C-alpha cells in the first residue's frame, strides 16, 4: 500500500501529509514535480504550501509540472488523488475539479481550528466518515474562498459532490460554505482545511483528519482484494 506525496518547489506540508499517511498505515513515496514517474503508488496527495511561490495564481504553474501530466492521466483511470489547500488549488487549475479558489473575502491569511460537516461521504477518501458527521481540523490559507458559477454549484450539490461544508462559521467566504468537493467518479477530492494536521493528539486539535487516509487505504485494499 503506497501513498505518494508530491513535492513542488514551495510545497510546505508535504512532510505532514507523508506523516499522516504513515500514521494511517501506508508506506509513503515522495514524488518530485519534475519527475513524471509515479513510482507505482496506489494514491497521490498534493500537499499544502505555495508551489512556485504562488506566482501568477495559486496552482497555475504547478498544473504544468511533468508529474501533473501523469497524475491527470492516472486520475482519469481511477487513481485516488487528494489535494489539500494548495493541492486543491492545483486540482482546480488542472481541471480535475471544477471551480476556483480565490482570495479570502476578509483579505487576511487565516489559521484557526475549524468545524466541518460532511454532506456526502461517497468516494474513496471519505468512507470512514458518515454523512452529517462534524469534524474539527485546522484551516490555514489566504486564498481559500471557493467560487463557481451557479450552474456548477447546483450540479455539485445535485451529484453529491460537495463533500464537506464549513460549520460554525465560514473562514474565507467560500460559496455555499464549501470546504471540500470531489469529482463525479469519487476518486479525486479537494479540501481547503488540513486533515494532515489533525492526526496526533500532541500536535493537532483532534484526530479527525486521519479518516481521509484510513479511508483510502481501505478502498485500495478492497480494490486489490
Amino acid at each position, binding site marked *: 500500500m503506497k501513498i505518494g506525496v508530491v513535492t513542488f518547489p514551495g510545497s510546505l506540508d508535504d*512532510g*505532514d501529509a507523508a506523516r499522516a499517511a504513515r500514521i494511517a498505515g501506508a508506506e509513503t513515496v515522495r514524488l518530485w514535480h519534475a519527475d513524471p514517474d509515479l513510482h507505482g503508488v496506489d494514491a497521490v496527495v498534493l500537499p499544502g504550501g505555495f508551489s512556485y511561490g504562488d*506566482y501568477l495564481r495559486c496552482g497555475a504553474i504547478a498544473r504544468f509540472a511533468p508529474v501533473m501530466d501523469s497524475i491527470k492521466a492516472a486520475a482519469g483511470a481511477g487513481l485516488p488523488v487528494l489535494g489539500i489547500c494548495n493541492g486543491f488549488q492545483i486540482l482546480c487549475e488542472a481541471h480535475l475539479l471544477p471551480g476556483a479558489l480565490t482570495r479570502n473575502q476578509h483579505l*487576511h491569511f487565516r489559521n484557526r481550528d475549524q468545524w466541518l460537516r460532511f454532506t456526502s461521504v461517497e468516494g474513496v477518501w471519505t468512507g470512514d466518515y458518515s454523512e452529517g458527521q462534524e469534524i474539527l481540523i485546522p484551516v490555514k490559507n*489566504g486564498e481559500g474562498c471557493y467560487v463557481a458559477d451557479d450552474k456548477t454549484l447546483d450540479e455539485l450539490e445535485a451529484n453529491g459532490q460537495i463533500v464537506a461544508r464549513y460549520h460554525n462559521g465560514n473562514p474565507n467566504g467560500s460559496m455555499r460554505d464549501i470546504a471540500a468537493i470531489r469529482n463525479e467518479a469519487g476518486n479525486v477530492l479537494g479540501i481547503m482545511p488540513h486533515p494532515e*494536521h489533525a492526526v496526533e493528539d500532541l500536535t493537532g486539535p483532534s484526530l479527525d483528519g486521519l479518516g481521509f487516509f484510513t479511508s483510502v487505504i481501505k478502498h485500495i485494499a478492497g480494490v486489490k482484494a
Partner: protein
Amino acid sequence: MSIDTVERADSTPDELQPFAELGLKEDEYLRIRQILGRRPTQSELAMYSIMWSEHCSYKSSKIHLKQFGEKAPPSDRMLAGIGENAGVIAITDTLAVTFKVESHNHPSFVEPHQGAATGVGGIVRDILAMGARPVAVMDPLRFGAADHPDTRRVLPGVVGGIGGYGNCLGLPNIGGEVVFDPSYQGNPLVNALCVGVLPADRLQNKAAVGPGNIVVLMGAKTGRDGIGGVSVLASATFDEGSEQRRPSVQVGDPFIEKLLIESCLELYESKLIVGVQDLGGAGLTCALTETAAAAGTGMDVQLEKVHLREASMEPHEVLASESQERMLFIVEPSNLDAVLGVASVWGVIATPIGTVTDTGRVRVTWHGETVVDVPPGSLADDGPVYARPLREPADLILLQADRAETLPRPSTPDELRETLLRLVASPNLCDKTWVTEQYDRYVLGNTVLAQPEDSGIIRIDEESGLGVALSVDGNSRYTRLDPYEGAKLALAEAFRNVAVTGATPVAVTDCLNFGSPEDPAVMWQFAEAVRGLADGCQELGIPVTGGNVSFYNQTGAVAIHPTPIVGVLGVLDDVSQRIPMGFTQADDVLFLLGETTAEFSGSEWAWVTHEHLGGKPPRVDLGREQTLASLMQRASASGLVHAAHDLSDGGLAQALVESALRKNIGATVSLGSDPFVTLFSESASRILVAVSVGHRQAFEALVTEHEIPHSVIGVTGGSSLVFRDQFEIPLDELRSAWSETLPKLFG
C-alpha cells in the same frame, strides 16, 4: 562617470569624499585613509561606512556586551556563542539547537509589510548559516497607542508581512508579543526570533579557509534595494522625511528563501562546502570581509560576475546592496560542479564570483579594474569602539518617587468587577487572535504549544518526544522605571514562561532596543539593562548565546522606552509531559505559588486606569524563579499538574481569565483580605497551578519541599469566574470583553 579605481584613488589623493553623508565621522574617515595608506575608493568608502555603522560594528555597545561573556556560567553545551550568526547549544550527544532574536525596526516603520517580512527572512538565514533547519519563528512586536491612526497603518502591514513571509517559508509561528505604548508611536519595534535544529556534527563555519577554494554566491539576484539599510536606516535617528528612505528597505521573496533553505541543507548533508555566510545587513561587503577575516585569508572577487537585477548598477552598489535571499559559500574546486548541480535541482541561481587567497587582502575587480583592496579584518573586526558618556536620566528620581501604590484603588465589588473587565479588554491584555491567526502555527506538524500559551513548544525528535520550549518577553515600562531591574524582570518572565511548561531553561538570546547612543541618558539605560541581564543570567546559570542591539529607536529627541527583549530556550525530554496554561477539567484545586505584595508601579492597572507610569518596578527574586522552575520540572515529570500559568502583566486576574477562557472552564476563587491587591498586583515569581484533587497532597508536599510560599485559592469548574463574597463574571461576558478589542480597532 568612470569607475573610481584603486589606481585612480592613488593619483587623486585630495578628492573630496562624502564620508559624512554616509554616516562616518571625520576621525573615522582619517583612520580609513591611514589603514589603506591612501584615500578609499568610492566602493571602499561605501564598505567602511556600512561595516563601521552602529548596526554592524556594535561600536557603542561592544564594551558593555563583553559582560555577557565574562559573567556567563561555564557551559559545555555551548557549541557556538556570541559573534557567530547565532548561538548553538547541544541538547543531546548528537542534536543541537540554535536560536536568535533580531530587530527590523526602522524598515518596518518606513514600509511595514516588507520591513517586517524581511526581518523574518534575515533571522531565518542566520539560523540556516549555522547548519540548522529552521523549525519555528516568534515575533515580539511593539506599536504606538492602539487607537492612534498611524498604528492602523503600521500594525496590519507588519502582521501581514510577518505572516506572508513566514507562512510561505513553511515555518510555524509559535509565539511572541503584541504590546502597545505611546512611546513607540514614531518608532515601532519589530523583532523576529528563529529557532533551528541540527545534528551537532553538521555545525557550519563562516571562515573562508583554503586558498584556491571557490567563492560562490547563491540565491536571488542583486538589486538596488536595501542599499544603506544598516547605515542609513538602522544607525540614525528618524526625523521629517523618513519616508524618503523607503529605497533603503529591502524587498523579500519568501519562495526563493524556501528554495535556499532546501539547497543549503542538501549542501550541508552532502558535505559539499567548507564555509558559509548569509547575506543580511551590509550584504556582500559583510559576507566577503567577515568570511575572509574569520579565516585570516584573503579573497579575489570578480564583482561583474554577480547576477544583477539592473545592469546599470555600479560596483559600490553591488557591494552595499542588501537584496534578500542570498548566501555565500566557500567550496573546494572539486565540489563546485556538485554545488552548482544542487542549486539547479532547486532552481536557484549559483555563481562562482571569486577565489580564496593567502594574501590577507580582499581584492575586488570590476571588469578587470581593481576597485577594492582592503585588509578584511579592518572592516569586520577592527571597527571603532566608543565608551560613550553615561548619565542617569534627569527625570528618573522624580519618576521613581511618583509611586503607583499611592493611586486611588477600586474597593467595592462592583468597582473591582468593572476594573477587571476594563483590564481584560485593554489593548495589551486583550485577545491577540486577530494577529496570531494570520500566522501558520501548524506547518511541519511538530507544534505542541503555540500562542497564547506561555511558551511555544516544538517537538524536535518524533521518536523520543524530545522538544524545545521558547518564550520572548520584555516590559519596557519596568525598564523605563529601572533598567537594571527591568532587564532582570524580562529575563525572569521569559525564564518562568519556559519553566511553567515543565521545560528546563538552558540558554538566552536578547534583542536590545534603545534610543540614540549619543544621548548619555539612553546610553545609561543601555548600560544598566545589559548589566542587569548579564547579572541575571549569571545568577540563573544560563548563558546569553547571541542577540542583537538596535539603537537610534527614536523620532526626533524622544527615545522609546528602553526595551530589552529576552528570549529563553528550554528543553523538554518528552513533550507529551508539557503543562498547558488552560484549565483542563472541573474540580481541580487552584494553587497560587509565590508571594503577592502591593506592587503596582509600572503595572497594567496603573497604566490603563490612571495612565500612570512611575515608582519602582516589582522586586524580582531569581533564586525563587529557579526554585519554581525545578518544582515545575518535577511536577511535569510526575504528571501531577493539569495546568499552570505564569503571572505577569495584569496579575492574578488576567491569569485566571486566560486559563479559564482557553477551554471555557470557569473557577471559584477566594481573594483573601485585600481583593484588589490579590487580583491586580504584578509581583514577580508567581505561578497559578491547577491540580486534580487526587494529586493535591502530593503536589503540596512537593511545594513544601521546595520551600515555596503558596496558598490554595479555589477550584476550577462552572461557566463563570466567581470571586467569593465579591463578584462573578460569566465566561461569555469575559470572552466578549477580551476578544472584541483588536477586531474593533483593526477590522
